[in-house]
């Protein structure tokens, strides 16, 4: 691995949501959305985070951004050399952190306030971070719109006058307005038409180069993530089951779930011969995860140990590159 600086280190991060029942709202169980995630995000990389519904990837993104409170664990961010746990920041420190971490959302229809013009929506964060004069804000917003290939005059229009792809680009402009270092893209292209997805993906790549950004790209679409990411982490029921370079994940798959996932995806290539591994049953609920390895009930290769002991995410070196996987079969 090249000399990479760690921007964000997650240590055993957990986010549980209480399930409350009854008149007195007793907590009867917990939804273990994020269940012990320990990975690093390196400066300047695009880390893809994939998984199916209920795996916890969106919750992980929101936990890092402090939109949802972590239940346990640490998220240690590298503030220009000084390392601090995001979960334990004071309000003042959190305000500074908000400049560094931003998010782009999925749904272009609800990501912008329908009652405000684009200028109205984008100026409040700038005001918040000290841009006092309206003229200056106008200039900055105009520049941002041009950076995402939209015209400056668009700032005077309302969201409903734009298409889905354009709104998504405005959402990206908004995230860029405070000059962040890390941007979480939460299914940022999933709701767009396929031909528009390419436009937005290209834009994200260009912006990353120009502005030295780091991305955490959350998606369920493995074709997209393979294309845009440097490394990919695969999540299942709140845990990371595999983490490797994009090409390695596909060519050297270690975890049975990743194998099944990759084989299940319909590929837009007639010459691609897929041996579809059909998984039995459904994705279990994060309220009551299985004992041992979360994947074992559906795993075609399970052994006795899998139902008893939770496998750790271990590092394997393949051709000098790091490849993490959590599977007893690899021991």
């Amino acid at each position, binding site marked *: 691995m090249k000399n990479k600086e760690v921007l964000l280190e997650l240590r055993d991060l957990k986010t549980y949501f209480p399930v409350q029942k009854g008149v007195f709202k007793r907590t009867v169980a917990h939804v273990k959305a994020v269940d012990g995630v320990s990975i690093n995000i390196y400066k300047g990389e695009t880390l893809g985070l994939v998984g*199916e519904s209920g795996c916890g990837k969106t919750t992980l993104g929101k936990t890092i951004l402090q939109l949802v409170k972590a239940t346990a664990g640490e998220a240690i961010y590298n503030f220009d050399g000084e390392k601090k746990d995001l979960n334990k920041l004071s309000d003042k420190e959190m305000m500074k952190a908000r400049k560094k971490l931003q998010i782009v959302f999925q749904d272009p229809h609800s990501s912008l306030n329908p009652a405000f013009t684009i200028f109205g929506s984008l100026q409040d964060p700038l005001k918040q971070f000290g841009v006092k004069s309206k003229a200056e804000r106008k200039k900055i917003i105009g520049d941002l719109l041009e950076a995402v290939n939209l015209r400056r005059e668009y700032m005077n229009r309302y969201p409903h006058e734009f298409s889905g792809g354009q709104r998504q680009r405005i959402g990206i402009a908004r995230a860029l307005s405070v000059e962040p270092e890390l941007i979480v893209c939460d299914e940022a292209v999933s709701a767009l038409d396929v031909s528009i997805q390419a436009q937005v993906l290209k834009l994200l790549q260009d912006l990353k180069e120009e502005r030295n950004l780091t991305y955490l790209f959350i998606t369920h679409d493995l074709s997209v993530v393979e294309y845009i990411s440097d490394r990919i982490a695969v999540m299942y029921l709140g845990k990371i089951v595999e983490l490797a370079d994009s090409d390695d994940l596909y060519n050297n798959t270690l975890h049975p779930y990743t194998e099944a996932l990759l084989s299940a995806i319909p590929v837009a290539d007639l010459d691609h011969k897929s041996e579809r591994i059909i*998984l039995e049953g459904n994705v279990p609920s994060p309220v009551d995860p299985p004992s041992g390895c979360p994947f074992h009930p559906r795993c075609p290769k399970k052994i006795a140990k899998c139902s008893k002991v939770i496998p750790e995410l271990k590092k394997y070196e393949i051709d000098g590159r790091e490849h993490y996987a959590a599977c007893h079969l690899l021991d």
Partner: protein
Amino acid sequence: MNKDNTIISVDNLKTYFYTNERCNKAVNGVSFKIRKGRTLCVVGESGCGKTVTATSIMRLLPKLSRIEEGEITYYSDQGPIRIDQLDPNGSKMRSLRGQDIAMIFQDPMTALNPVYTVGYQIRENLKYHTDLTKDEAKKRAVELLDNMGIPLPEQRVNEYIHQFSGGMRQRAMIAMAMACNPKVLLADEPTTALDVTIQAQIFDLMEELKEDYNTAIMMITHDMGVVAELADDVAVMYMGNIVESGTVEDVLRNPAHPYTKALLKSIPVLGKGRSQKLEPIRGNTPDPFDRPKGCQFNPRCDYMTEKCYETPESFTVKGEHYTKCWHYEKVLSDEE
């Protein structure tokens, strides 16, 4: 029945919508054939009119819309029936629906009634279209759920739809649609809302249906991957027209329309890694109320010339491979 195993043929179908006092030409002259034992994938992006095509065939259009022109012919055992001429609420159309032609939708939660059990709804369908007694219908419902791969069908037949998980709900909907062994199944993005591993299960199921019952399937999707894996025939739609159609081999290997070609070049293909060159299609889908003159793809097309202000005719590339582009020969010869 037609000698070339066509079971539904659609000829120059035009369906217009009249909401908000405007006329939206959602489907504007569409022709294709659905064949027995084959899957036709209708692929296109949002607003291209693919769903409207299916609801036109089923005569399930909303109040403020109608079929303006065109013919929809169903080749039943008793001879050809002109669906477009039937009263949409009449007994003839209602007997066709469910028994001969069935439709499954994207969201099973809203397509199935939440206050009746799944078994009850399947039995309703059977009661209306067949002569089965109540007990026979009950048995058949359990059999159907079993055939669709739902475990413990005797128990699940008495449950409500919210008690089913996403994939199971879709299977239940397919079970209900297949209850009377329809000759044609129209599937509108049936797996878009499902996880990939569940999607794979549903596709396997649909392949089995095709093989076991010789069902004709029309699958609406926006996912080229689905097309590559499932389709026998493809129709590519853009702004209410079919711009290209043919077998999946023809269309995917030798795209003859600039839109098809551009679409294929703009999507990431799993396995091709990071070195793929994605080329986005420039511009945006036009406003349906502010359409370009002539060919709808003009503003975004690399092959556009003056001639394109005239609406293109349909050209035969080879055999059953058709396209609507004046410059199709150039498109074909431009290899990457």
